[in-house]
């Protein structure tokens, strides 16, 4: 064999084709080199690993995985044999992990959203700035506004009703969570500014309670059941 270790990849992970002849310690060295070369490319990737070309003992497999996790930033989720059933299982695991990842990630937006501007994204979003009246944020997940919400916010745009909207200064025209819409009181903008000036703004959270949008101050327990 020309190369003692060949690295191949498919959508779900990496296949290592190993030389059956050379001593294990030497092979381990080659594997380490291979992964170090491609570490930048695979940075923090979640993947499945499978071995071909050589039968490894449990101890040897363990040593290889140990080396990879110590020397690189790759997360090996599992090791697969080449048989079909287990491959199917691996696919499921990896896809599940990817889905969980996307559920936990969000986007950042820095700047004030002004009248007529619409910001829409599939994940949760954190706005660093104000959302002015006439502006609108639409998010498939949660919305966190590190500033004032004075416009319209739609959380859980895909219909999910356990999403929330947080703002440091909560004075929205309208909030929609899932399919439930809540709107501001019927008073003029001037009156609303006056009222907000009288009270010092505190961070508040809007969520669904009993089929209505409920806005309340954030406490220690707010996020326990979300």
């Amino acid at each position, binding site marked *: 064999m020309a190369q003692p270790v060949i690295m191949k990849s498919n959508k779900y992970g990496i296949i290592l084709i190993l030389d059956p002849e050379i001593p294990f310690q030497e092979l381990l060295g080659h594997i380490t080199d291979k992964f170090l070369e491609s570490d930048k490319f695979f940075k923090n990737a979640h993947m499945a690993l499978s071995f071909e070309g050589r039968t490894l003992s449990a101890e040897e497999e363990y040593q290889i995985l140990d080396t990879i996790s110590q020397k690189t930033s790759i997360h090996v989720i599992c090791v697969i044999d080449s048989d079909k059933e287990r491959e199917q299982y691996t696919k499921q695991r990896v896809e599940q992990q990817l889905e969980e990842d996307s559920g936990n990630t969000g986007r950042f937006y820095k700047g004030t959203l*002004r*009248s007529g501007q619409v910001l829409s994204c599939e994940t949760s979003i954190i706005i660093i700035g104000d959302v*002015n009246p*006439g*502006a609108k944020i639409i998010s498939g997940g949660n919305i966190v506004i590190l500033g004032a919400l004075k416009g319209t916010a739609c959380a859980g745009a895909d219909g999910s009703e356990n999403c929330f909207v947080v703002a440091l200064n909560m004075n929205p025209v309208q909030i929609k969570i899932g399919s439930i819409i809540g709107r501001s009181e019927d008073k003029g*903008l*001037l009156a609303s*500014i006056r009222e907000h000036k009288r009270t010092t703004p505190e961070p508040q959270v809007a969520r669904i309670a009993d089929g209505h949008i409920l806005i309340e101050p954030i406490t220690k327990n707010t996020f326990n059941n979300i």
Partner: protein
Amino acid sequence: MSEVIVITSGKGGVGKTTTTANVGTGLAQLNKKVVLIDTDIGLRNLDVVMGLENRIVYNLVDVVEGSCRIKQALIKDKKYPNLSLLPSAQTRDKSSVTPEQMKKLTDELREEFDYILLDCPAGIEQGFQNAIAGADRSIVVTTPEVSAIRDADRIIGLLESNEIRQTQLIVNRLRMDMVKRGDMMTVEDVCEILAVNLIGVVPDDEQIVISTNQGEPLVGSDALAGKAFANICKRIIGEDVPFLDLQKKASVFERLAGLFK
């Protein structure tokens, strides 16, 4: 280095044209070479406010279409030879000019003038796009009313997305008596909503109506609005001028005293 400044508001009737006339005249009083361009094609009125209507021969559309040279269309002010006006066309519409043509025009004018002020039409359509095409910075005029502020917010968003970096705010027609009674938004309220730098506050002043009707900009006069515009001009050229105390009702005596300060 010359600067192209667009004066805009979104909403109509908040005082863009009056502001353009007064700021332009004020900058000319500070010995700057200034040209005012009325970009409101079809609704020409900056020339009326400047009292120069009777001198119009060629207009903006003639210039961009090449029917005349820029020099031929520029009208010199009655009082200040370093102030010129490029009037709008009354019989055409906004589609007679493209943003590219406006940019070319303002770039040519940069060679001769220190400040090129563009009086923008109301709205966000082609007239607005034309007016902002060549601008380096913008002055947004608003009154302390919810409708004007909402439109100003929209305009500021559009200016940002058109990469006009520096936007400053004039709060026009403020009535201190109403603010004191709590019936009008304060300047702080307006600034908090719009979150842009304030460059001036102009009080509601009947002298403005009188001066507009006479075709003589008020800037530089003793009237409070005239002083406010003069201060705005100084801030435009980079001077640090404190804001007028509008709380104080200036009596005749105080105005006289102010003259000798």
